[in-house]
């Protein structure tokens, strides 16, 4: 928790100083990170480059990479998104092959404009070598990037509430008053995870059965 707060404070100061746009995304991503759990380091690097273009960091605010969207996806591929694990392996490899074929370098080594052009090839389903198709892989990654940027930080994304800050979500309130629903309400920001609240169970399994009693 302490680390998160200090990072957030750092980001705030950087934003105030107009620094964010000047800091290469890798600097955020590489600082003190654990190795990827389900993706290989190379796959992780490609995925980081993708999410950094889908929701890019700019002068106004940090983006999906800084929010930890790639880390969110990596972690989820070991549980809730396990069914997509093979799709990522194949899709990330196909993207790199597409990049090498088009420009002679892996995707992560290209400049932002080139990366955007290649991602548009996927979105428009004109890139070859993807099964079932490039656009299906693109939509999968885009959806998971939104999850990893805007979901409850409990799942490893939305670090420092970057996603919630971006769209102006005021945060979790367990009780909301009428005035807090006014269109121009200036609700103080609440920056907690649902699971910081002691009343909620983190378990996603059902509770105990009733006994037969006979």
């Amino acid at each position, binding site marked *: 928790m302490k680390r998160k707060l200090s990072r957030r404070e750092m980001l705030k100061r950087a934003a105030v100083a107009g620094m964010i746009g000047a800091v290469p995304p890798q600097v955020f991503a590489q600082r003190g990170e654990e190795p990827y759990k389900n993706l290989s380091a190379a796959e992780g690097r490609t995925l980081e480059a993708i999410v950094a273009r889908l*929701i*890019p960091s700019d002068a106004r605010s940090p983006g999906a990479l800084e929010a930890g969207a790639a880390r969110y996806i990596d972690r989820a591929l070991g549980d809730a998104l396990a069914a997509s694990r093979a799709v990522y392996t194949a899709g990330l490899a196909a993207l790199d092959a597409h990049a090498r074929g088009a420009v002679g370098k892996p995707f992560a080594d290209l400049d932002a404009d080139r990366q955007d052009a290649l991602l548009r090839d996927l979105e428009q389903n004109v890139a070859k070598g993807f099964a079932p198709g490039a656009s299906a892989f693109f939509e999968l990654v885009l959806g998971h990037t939104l*999850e990893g940027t805007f979901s409850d930080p409990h799942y490893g994304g939305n670090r420092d509430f970057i996603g919630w800050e971006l*769209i102006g*979500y005021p945060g979790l*309130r367990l009780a909301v008053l009428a005035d807090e629903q006014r*269109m121009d309400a200036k609700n103080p920001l609440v920056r907690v995870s649902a699971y910081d609240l002691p009343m909620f169970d983190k378990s*996603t399994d059902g509770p105990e059965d*009733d006994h037969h009693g006979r």
Partner: protein
Amino acid sequence: MAVRLPRTEVVVVGLGGAGGVAVEPLTAAGRNVIGLEAGTRLAPKDFAPDELRNNFRGWPQAAQKANREIPVHRASSQAPDDPRAAIHPMMNGVGGTTLHYWAQSWRLSPWDFRVASETKRRYGAKRIPPRSTVEDWPFGLEELEAYYDKVEYALGVSGQAGNVQGVIDPRGNIFEGPRAREYPMPPLRGTEFTDLMGAAARRLGWHPFPGPAAINSQAYQNRSQCMYHGYCSRGGCHVSAKNSTAVSTIPRAEATGKLEIVTSAHVTSIDVDGDGRASGVQYVKDGETYIQPAAVVLLGCYTYENTRLLLLSDSKRFPNGLANNRGQVGKHYMSHNQGATVNALFPHKLNRWYGLPAQGVGVDEWADDNFDHGALDFIGGGNLWVYSDQRPIAAAGMPTFGRAPRWGAEWKAFVADNADRWTTSYLQKTTLPYAENYLDLHPSVKDPLGYRVCRVTADHKDNERRIASFIQDKMEQWFREAGAVATLRGPIGTMGVTTHAYGGTRMGDDPATNVVDRYGFAHEVPNLGVLGASVMGTSGARNPTLTAQALAWRTAEHLAANWSKIAG
């Protein structure tokens, strides 16, 4: 070897919205009831405000029986199967989907009970769409009114009456049928945004009203009022202000000592005796098979599973499935025509971050037969509903109204400015039953126990498409009047697996075209009752749950009052 349990009086299969209601009048009448529920018990600690888990990963369905038997949809008997949905739309659990539903608790309109005869009377028989199998219900709203009233008070429904004993109150829905008395609670509060929409509707000469919800607008039955926290859709209530059967009718039934609940019980068949009467059910729990004999069986699963369990329960006497010797099980299927929505972009913030889907404003001017269809090419209509409810992932996934790409720097700037300046609408529209739309068993897709899953064969017809287009026009008009700077119409889609599924065991007097009689008992199996929207013969233009609950109460009360005749 199956374990044969002692005989009971009534076994209820499924303790959700319908079965969970039926147990109250039955136990109050002193009947011994065993409730078999495929899910477990959930409590407020399980209802974290977690959009990813609730709305994207489908918890808790993802880990439940329902999810192992997701129906397969195809648009027609010639069409290939669609890809199977990843998550079943409904959940198991004591309380079923009432634990996490939107809790909108409507009565049907008087027209919904008499679509066939009213259409003939007002416009001529030719106006009933070709191939539609629609029939009048065996009774009208006036018969069901007393049961709507009972469940509104038993569960707790908030709302503003529009018609009390024929006296119209313009604060409520002026088109609703007469009710005996006011709702037990005043409506949920509005928001500045829903008030803005209401004012726009009035400028158009329409009659907006706050909708009814099984959610406490004030403390009720010693449970809290609603906290408007924004995680109600597909989330259970952390203060039990959502009046699921798990916090209302079921606990009262259990308190009588007459209801025994068995959770994680996966019912695999309804058995019959030599006379063709239901003798009980078989279920699997923790890998063990049990036989539960009963004098009366009440089938209270969801629409898909009601049909499925009947079709799986074949026997010498019923070779095509239980109560299906006339081939009506699975017929007259409808899912709600609720695609074809309209989104709108406003030039100012709306603050929809908090609230709930039931906190909104409705318009019924264009629903049912509330307007003259003489010069139109369809019958029926739709309820327009706008509400305060949005969470972050969905907000970031907002449509961009042609003003930005779907990702990248421009997209990011667009959502930063507009994530709280857009809204959707909920447009529930009439769906009629057709000969081509039906449920049966899939020929090859099975659940892990080896039983075939339900197959849905259904698609929208011309009448439904015309309603959708007409209602989208009205919704766009309403949004523009309220100041929207852009509107966006969504596609109607197909009739895939859904939370609003009707038919398959239709109720009616004629056994040639209906599975259950006017009290909900099978024409072919007099001690087998069916609970849920699977008995409904028309969809209405509003959420089905309260109607399914009123019918369930009525079936249970009929059983209690005619016990020796039905139980034999």
